[in-house]
């Protein structure tokens, strides 16, 4: 297994990543000299206790935030050297992001929230709209809801819109920060199925979760602690929830002290 993983091509390579925040006079190191490869086509899950720096790492990888030190190579190119607008174009082209707090644009409909991203690439409008409708269907968001304004919907509905928005441009890498946090089990399954489907079609997924059931979908689980990769677990390709997979995950998490 270990061997097989190595054959995969790394889409993101992180070297000596450093991220610290200075709050007043104290400097708090969140990510400390972290090295990591994310493989193309992988469903990678990041776990760790609250405040471990999972979101911070995701923002760094997706070019939302600049690290304090170290290098992040995306497809071989160092994105830490990009200028602001280059980073914007980079995000537009390569990354889809489901935020932990979702962050929809107010004052416009859910559909427009998605299209605001979708129309950025210059693709034919009709194709984008069609794909948006398909994705909405897949995450079980009813047609009338799509016309609603982002301030008129429930947390779970918002989360699904966030997911559609992240997927609309078929990004190379989909980042998802606890995308199922606000969903009940039925909807959660539907959403995860969408991710799995996207994964099957070859897109890479990096997801943060606190939920074991969600974690089971991963090819690979990375555990973050004290600003470093504390351990990782390879589960292999997901078919269904089998006992073996569950046992392996439980054992790993126990080792990690979760």
């Amino acid at each position, binding site marked *: 297994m270990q061997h097989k993983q190595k054959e995969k091509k790394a889409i993101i390579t992180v070297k000596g990543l450093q991220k610290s925040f200075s709050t007043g006079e104290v400097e708090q190191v969140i990510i400390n000299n972290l090295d990591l490869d994310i493989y193309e086509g992988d469903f990678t899950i990041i776990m760790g206790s609250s405040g471990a720096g999972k979101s911070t790492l995701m*923002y760094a990888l997706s070019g939302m*935030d600049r690290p304090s030190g170290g290098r992040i190579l995306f497809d071989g190119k160092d994105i830490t050297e990009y200028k602001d607008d280059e980073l914007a*174009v980079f*995000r537009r082209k390569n*990354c889809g992001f489901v935020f932990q707090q979702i*962050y929809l644009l107010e004052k416009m409909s859910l559909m*427009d929230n998605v*299209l605001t991203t979708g129309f950025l690439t210059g693709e034919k409008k009709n194709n984008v709209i069609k794909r948006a409708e398909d994705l909405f269907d897949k995450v079980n968001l009813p047609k009338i809801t799509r016309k609603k304004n982002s301030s008129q919907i429930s947390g779970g509905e918002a989360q699904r819109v966030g997911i559609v928005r992240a997927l609309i441009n078929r990004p190379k890498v989909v980042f998802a920060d606890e995308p199922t946090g606000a969903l009940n089990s039925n909807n959660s399954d539907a959403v995860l199925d969408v991710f799995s489907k996207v994964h099957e079609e070859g897109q890479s997924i990096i997801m943060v979760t606190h939920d074991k059931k969600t974690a089971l979908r991963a090819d690979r689980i990375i555990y973050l602690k004290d600003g470093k990769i504390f351990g990782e677990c390879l589960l292999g390709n997901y078919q269904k929830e089998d006992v073996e997979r569950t046992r392996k995950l439980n054992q790993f998490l126990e080792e990690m002290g979760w």
Partner: protein
Amino acid sequence: MKKIWVLAKHNLKKEKGQYMAFGIILLMTALILNIALVLLFQMDKAYDKKFDELDTANVNVIVAGGKSQPVVEYNVNIDKETKTTEQFEIVEEAKITERLDEIEKEISQLENVEKVEVLEAIFLNAIVKDFRGTDFDMNTVFYNMDETHELNRLEIIREDKTEVKNPIYLPLYIAEFGQFDLGDTIVYQIEEEKVEFTVAGVVQEMQYGNLGNGIIGVYLPKETYTEFVKGREMCHVTVFSAQTKEQADSEKMMDSITSLLTDADESVLFSGYDRANKQVRTMVCNLLVVILAAFAVIVLLVSLLLCRERIQNRIEAEMTDMGVLKALGYTGNGIIAAMMLPYGIVGILTIVFGIGISYILLPVLVSVIQLQAGFWLTIGFDAIGALIVVVLLLGMVFFFTYFAARKIKKLQPIWAIRGISQGKISRKNVFALQTTKGNVHLLLAGKNMYAAARQNLLLFLVLFVLTILISFAGVLFYNVMVEPDNFMSTLAEESPDAVLTMNAEDGKGHKEVIENMEQVSNVLEYSIETVQLDKEEVPVFVCEDFNEVTNDLCYEGKNPENDDEIAIGNEIAQNGSYEIGDSITLTVEGKSASYKIVGFLQSVNYQGKLLELTKEGYEKICTENPYITLYVYLNEKEQTESFLELAEDNFEDGIVTTVNFYEKSKTSQELYAGIVQIVVLAVFLLTILIALLILFILIRSLLVQRRQELGIYKAIGYSNRQLMFQMAGSFLPTAFVAIFGSAVLGKFMMPTIYNGIFSMIGVMKHHCEISAGILLLFAGVLFVATFFISMVLSMPIKKISAYALIKE
């Protein structure tokens, strides 16, 4: 109270820039308003004070002849070939003396007359050489300043007592505007003779003041006067000055004095009364006050709208905080007070500061005003003005902020915390991306525009009003600086480029020659003569063809075309209650004719006391004119000087005098141009500054409000440039509609505004052109400025990192 103070300090600190912008606008309002009020209060007071201080007469009437004049009577039997003094027959001197004494007594017995004084002087039309670089002809009264008099006293403000040849004391207006210093030589050309004086002093007087009345006085010490009178006995006049009793109407008084004089067969050369004189002399000041007051109102409105907008914005943005504060036990009033307090503090500071600065700027304005007013205007601190400014502005600020902040009272803590908007903020999805065609960035700009509807409305109002302001300035600029003739012809009479006075015999032939000269575009026989109307001397403009004049003075009816037609000035029409169609009789040297009134004329200089006759019409009463006056219009005005030189060389024999009229009107134009330059520049800078400030406040507050939203856009891959365009773009359509809409409306509204302003100074018809081009140009400049300002102000978008939204 302490709690409120802490909150207020927090509010103030948090948005320094916003308060600063608000402060600057308020400062400007206070500054402008204070200047307007100080001028309004003090100009009038200072004028009246000086008027009383110098015991100025309320009515002054000048009649021909004086006690020390060899009294003559026109003798019709004398040979008319040679028009010399021999034509006049000396009558007994005693008679006129008696007559004048008699009149003086009669005047003093008139109702409401407090005091009468009679002074003798020399009155003639003299050309001042090198008056601000040109020759300027003025009707000048030369006084013997050592003759004792109690009314119309002089105040010497500068004096050089060293012995000089022919000392003269000039009134402030000639000294300052004509640029004559103590010790300078001033040359008067009187007919063909040049008389030189040395400026020995500058005086202030309230009798004439400036040339607005078409007449001015200069003052000669006794010896100079005696010397000057020699050979000019025929120009002796008697000045009747009367002081009215309190509250008496000086205009009526003037009328009764003039009719008394004309009944006694005296010919009245000039008559004037205090109110008219004051109006002419304070015209520029009053215009400034009106313009400044209008400014102040506009700027005040802008600042109030802004401060309301700011507070509403704050309430929306900080509803949660406020809810928490309420939940923690702050009262609504406490929070409102904390909101208002910073505005109060900023308000007081900037208002006081603005008032202070206004006193630094006032001297600049005053120097321009006193040049025109012709008296020394000293401005002191005006406590009432300052109080009004402070109370009015602060009151308005408190009132507006309170009304905007009042909402907080109704705010329920739970609404605030849950982020439930109380407003009717529409949840409509305008410019739906799915169904609306068009560029996604344009559509998003549209969405923003809709979301910021209130801000856009504010921007619309402000830019609309600002455009009216700069349109006004633009029109003024155009008519004074670009096409100065428009403005000058409104205030002046017919203005050719050169005036040639020739002997009648030679003139006819020369006229044709001049007409054919290549640099000449037109030649008109045009002269200003004097006729008697109801025994009063009135100037009459005589022209061979009024269709060809460049400055049509007629504002109602038409100019005379036949020899039995006449047009009369508005003042004459009013006094004699003449209507168009009435007839009127004029007399020259005993010969009379009657004419039918066909039109009314206006003239600022002659204050509506003038007539127009065709050449043939005038010849009905005056056949013998030894001179012919030609108004010459050139293709290139700048060549007037060289044309005159050429004419003088060519027609040496025939020419009596020449006047470079072009230079002359340029000089009087300078007086206005200076003021207009200041006004236009001030309006322009002010407009741009206000536009800048308002955009600053709007965009800044939107940036704060939309911080997270912008972060999301960035996170999903929008670039800085795209977002800046979106932000600026959401204001541009509004700016465009407001600015160009206002400019187009201005094309129709400006005439009304200009009519109003001009009618205030007694002009019935003005020649100012409301050029669409200049309106569009100024509007265009404002729009481009708006665009750049909003782009630059949107720059901080660059600083919001995608990550900033996560931090929120």
